[in-house]
């Protein structure tokens, strides 16, 4: 997955660089076009389907994936900080899924070799839900899960 991604990017960049030097497009357009987005994965509604859309068949539960930072209770579902460390060798991507959101997949992070198997971000959670960290490493998929409760703070109006 990662290698394919890297190859695609490299190839794309070369073409783009030529176009830029030929004055056909502005440098800022390069980034805009040399990317792709896995629409199928972002349309899925559960762990299994997401794993399939990410290129796997099934994911196994792993103790080597750690929620290094993630609250048990979030005071506001609009911003839930989540950080994940994978201790699985050759980790090349980390995805964050929120089971009860309209679509499960929130984000996928691609980890080239030389970069730590770590990612953090902030996600939205519509309600209390299981959150999954899905890791792909050497062609296999693994996951860990954690329940995060979403509560209501403040005056309620």
């Amino acid at each position, binding site marked *: 997955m990662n290698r394919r991604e890297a190859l695609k990017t490299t190839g794309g960049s070369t073409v783009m660089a030529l176009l830029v030097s030929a004055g056909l497009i502005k440098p800022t357009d390069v980034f805009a076009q040399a990317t792709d*987005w896995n629409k199928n994965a*972002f349309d899925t509604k559960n762990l299994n389907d997401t794993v399939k859309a990410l290129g796997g068949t099934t994911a196994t539960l792993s103790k080597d994936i750690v929620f290094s930072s993630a609250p048990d209770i979030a005071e506001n579902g*609009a*911003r839930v900080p989540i950080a994940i460390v994978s201790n699985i060798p050759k980790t090349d991507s980390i995805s964050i899924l929120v089971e009860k959101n309209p679509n499960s*997949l929130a984000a996928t992070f691609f980890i080239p070799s030389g*970069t*730590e198997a770590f990612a*953090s971000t902030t996600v939205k959670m519509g309600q209390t839900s299981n959150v999954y960290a899905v890791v792909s490493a050497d062609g296999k998929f693994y996951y860990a899960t954690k329940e995060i409760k979403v509560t209501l703070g403040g005056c309620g109006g």
Partner: protein
Amino acid sequence: MADPMKIRARLQGDKTQVIVSMSHEMETGQRKDAAGKTVPAWFIQNVKATHNGKVVFSAQFGPAVAKNPNIGFRVNGAKVGDKIIMNWVDNRGDNRTDEITVTPA
């Protein structure tokens, strides 16, 4: 024109800890406005970090990433004074590129 990102890149031991704040609505496409009309989805789809011409971290976001999101990652092999270039592109094709110099922790 999108607002600049706020990027911090600090060398801690042999790892550079990068934290990026991005200014973006991250509209889900599920919300209705006051008139009851669905507000169309508008969100960052791709984020990329480059160091010495090499992509060192990239991400695909769905609309469930929070408004004004941040991401964090750790790069090996960067030195103080090196540049890290961040770029994002949203589903409307709007994009933003900013760079930061790695500083000591």
